[in-house]
């Protein structure tokens, strides 16, 4: 599986650390209820198909949102979590 790092180009999956679904970026606000924190930490849509998840390229240190398919392992593209650059 090759993941296109916006900074380094297409790189082998071995160079990346996997964190989980990209919803993890949507952190509840400081006043959010306990249910919101439970959902943030634990509950997952867990789609069979197209998904967005969070990876870190351990070589350059960049955190990426990678769009890929969980059924075929096809990777559609990746972007820096700051949204600065796309790569496909």
């Amino acid at each position: 599986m090759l993941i296109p790092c916006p900074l380094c180009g297409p790189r082998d999956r071995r160079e990346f650390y996997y964190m989980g679904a990209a919803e993890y970026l949507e952190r509840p606000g400081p006043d959010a209820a306990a249910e919101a924190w439970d959902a943030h930490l634990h509950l997952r849509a867990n789609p069979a198909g197209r998904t967005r998840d969070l990876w870190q390229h351990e070589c350059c240190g960049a955190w990426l949102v990678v769009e890929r398919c969980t059924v075929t392992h096809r990777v559609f593209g990746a972007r820096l979590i700051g949204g600065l650059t796309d790569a496909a």
Partner: protein
Amino acid sequence: MRYSGLQVLWEGLRGNRGWGPAWTKPEPKPAYDIVIIGGGGHGLSTAYYLAKNHGLKNIAVLEKGYLGGGNIGRNTTIVRANYFLPGNSEFYSHSLKLWEGLEAELNYNVMHSQRGLINLFHSDGQRDAFARRGNAMINQGDDAILLDREGVRAHLPYLDFENHRFPVYGGLLHPRGGTARHDAVAWGYARAASRLGVDLIENCEVTGITVNGGKLQGLTTTRGEIGAKKVAIVVAGRSGQVAAMAGLTLPIESHVLQAFVTEGLKPCIDHVVSFGMGHFYISQSDKGGLVFGGDIDFHASYAARGNLPMMEHVMEAGMALMPMIGRARVLRSWGGIMDMSPDGSPVIDRTPVDGLYINCGWNYGGFKAVPASGWCLAHLMATDESHEVARRFRLDRFATGHLLDEEGTGSQHNLH
């Protein structure tokens, strides 16, 4: 027909013409009292114990493919009760006791082989952790023996004891641990449930769960509408999709776990051996193949096949531990889809929908749990109270903070 040695002899003498099908294949009825979604190990054992322990009738198991075609037929068949935490410890202890009587119970040879399981350790800290785990196992009433380096050598002389990165300090021997024949477990429960009048309905995929006012109404399937008073979702690997039909979001992320088997060899590995530091474990099947595996691929996946990086890692770990297997040829590899939960422990509980129950989140340890999982889910569905050994497997424990994090790695699904 009751299976026995005499029956085998008799059928052998008359050309094996008398063996009938092991279970019936009925048409689905319009409604049942209890429907189990999922004809794998856990679903079939649930149906069996509902009928056997609680005397219930009018039960169906719906399976989208064929019975035992999911993870029950895709695992590495290890049976053990070496858990540490209260909540897990008593549950797996109960399961192992059920395994020990399973063949007589089901009148079916599940080839349960208590050949002993050895977890290796490679540092003083790890030895302390395993000594503590062993004491917890003994306190639970199970067996554990702490082996030093020479003790391990007596059991496993073929390990590389000169490995400097992970020197073998010793191992925790669990003599009652072992393996069983995975398919036979599904078939044995299917046959026994069918004999008690459970309808096993194959090629019947659930496509909708009807909920009205927070109460379960029935199911839509590829073989028509099926009414039900109580339904259990027992579909590990696809839990999220089926639960979503009832409007539920689960604390589950699906991951692929690979396993490998070599060509058949003469007996050479007598135990189940696990090398946790290298993410590698191995046993030898009765057919002679070395069955081994490692960790999950670490990224969410529904592909029932793995990627090369983990395959490479498993092979390297195997060679580091026991170089003697280097010339064995790998016959095939496969992947199974694991329900990974945020604490590495399962769920056997009610759902917020009245009449709907769920059994999920087995991570990569569901096989050994098959008897107790069915036993406890059947108890919950029949009595509406959690069984005492499964009372901590609650769906809401993540919200309340009562996690069962055996490895202490925190709320990240892929780290368990």
